[in-house]
């Protein structure tokens, strides 16, 4: 059977193998090989720095959110995805008590015509 990927292999090889490209890039970028002699934390510096970077990114976002008021009025945030209709439509799976709670909290329940009860599924 002819190898169906032969042409792909040839095409990729014609671009240069990944290993060869890797070597070219390493030379081009003058990337030093990681070596225990060079680093205080052998074999882990990249992970330490990137982990710290991600933590600082999160910290920066947290501070920005705090200053921008993203953590105020949390109740309103929780309801931002729901509109009046979402809250008032009768759900067939709810118990009478749950329906009553919904009515007390959000107003008279809207009868669910076929196809509109949950607005969701």
């Amino acid at each position: 059977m002819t190898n169906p990927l032969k042409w792909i292999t040839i095409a990729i090889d014609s671009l240069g193998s990944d290993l060869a490209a890797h070597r070219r890039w390493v030379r081009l970028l003058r990337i030093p090989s990681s070596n225990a002699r060079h680093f205080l934390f052998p074999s882990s510096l990249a992970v330490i720095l990137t982990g710290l970077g991600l933590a600082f990114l999160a910290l920066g976002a947290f501070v920005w959110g705090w200053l921008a008021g993203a953590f105020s009025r949390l109740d309103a945030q929780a309801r931002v995805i729901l509109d009046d209709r979402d809250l008032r439509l009768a759900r067939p799976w709810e118990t009478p008590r749950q329906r009553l709670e919904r009515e007390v909290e959000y107003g008279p329940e809207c009868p669910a015509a076929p196809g509109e009860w949950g607005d969701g599924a």
Partner: protein
Amino acid sequence: MPCRAGRMGGWRVSTDSAGVHLDESKSRVDDIAIRLRADASSRRVALIAFATAIGWLLVGSGFGEVSSLKMHIPDLLVNEAWLTFGRVRPSHLNAMIYGWASLAMMGVSVWMMPRLLHTELRFGSLAESGIWFWNVGVVIGIAGILSGHSDGLEWLEMPRYIAVPWLIVGGGMVGVALLATLAARRAEHLYVSVWYIMAAYLWFPIIFVIGNWPAWTGVESAATNWFYAHNTLGLWLTAVSLGAAYYFIPKVLGRPVHSYQLSLLGFWTLAFFYALNGMHHLIGGPVPEWMITTSIVASGLMVIPVLAVGINHHMTMVGRFTALRYSPTLRFVVFGAMSYTAVSLQGMFTATRAVNRVTHFTQWTIAHAHVGVYGFVTFVMFGSIYYIMPRIMNREWPSARLISWHFWLVAGGLVLYVVPLSVAGVLQGLVLLDPQAPFERSVQAEMFGLVTRSVAGLVLTVGHGVFAWHFWLMTRARGAERTISPFHEVRPILFVAPESAPIAVNTVADSSGAVSVGRGGPNR
């Protein structure tokens, strides 16, 4: 307050020769118009993302099944180099992670963000181009792996210089479109899903570039490799999937999430603690001991976000689990959310030295990964697509029976996959720990799990075929006369397949906010 009945989401609609009038205030009409414009702005991009993702789901399933069979039928398909295990198995992984899961998540993100931010998708064409770029990258990457050009690093097998740039550019395009949408938001509040999704699009390019950076060699390569692989799960796949779960569960139930404070706690603890988790994959390896210990501690700290999410989702659902019988979206998403809790707790224990000593290098890890990427991420994506597609196509899913088949096949297949393989993994590990036992005994100990996995893989593949077929019918407008979704009806469908649903015509508003007669409702 009077109840405003009707398909317009509480809007009483009347028309006359001059046009349409809504008996509500202008601002609330604007709310509907904004949502419609948001949906319209993202529909094409999301549809392309979903369609291509499902294509990759089928491709990945095929590779996965062949890989699984090869584990207990080692002479199967060995005459062609591209069909050997070392190429087919990474092709399965890459097709599923970068093809299926990532593209489905991009579709969900692109659709959800304009809704959540009350604005239109910015740079939609850029996002669409990004989806195509990403697809080209995955095609080249998998072709490269099959033709023997793998980079040889777990989760990073795609050729670094030929395939990866396409992914970076493509993912960047989608990310820029979402960032621009965020910048142009009209919403006063940032819902927790926005935090999750936008964080994912900031985290992923960083870890992806770090993972693929050509400088790492030797042990450091192993460290950055697992830093990348585990963070892809936690800071990319998990983040977007949790963002989707936090949207769809309250939306379908019609009640806010149990504790919004808890949802924020879950997000920020994930953001702060997750990044160092990956090193627990190198327990016993030649990396500094403190580094492994740090990773184990970080894995333990995950108990905070996991319990925060688990408790929150459970308390939102509590007393309303009957809803799972009605809503396929809820059924898939809740299954996914439960899997998230399960896989995370399992992962915490697996990260400890005592457990890892047994489970390392065994099938346990494979089963664990499938609970995460499949039971959690894929199920949430299935549920999301079941919710989003009717809004994109303005049609309902044609068949409740196909949805039911899909759910039971993939849920049953997953259980059949995970349980025996986990047991087999533990038995395999125990034998491997015995220096007197020949290696063959470990293979014999795990064999039942390998065979069961192939059967389970077949079941899952059939389930994916059902889903893909149903998706195809949906896009071809089959069953279009059915204007009310089977699962919109006020009766359960999980155990009883309904008969034909009634046909109804209702009033909808188009993307510009104008109202016309047609299918579907604007407020869905």
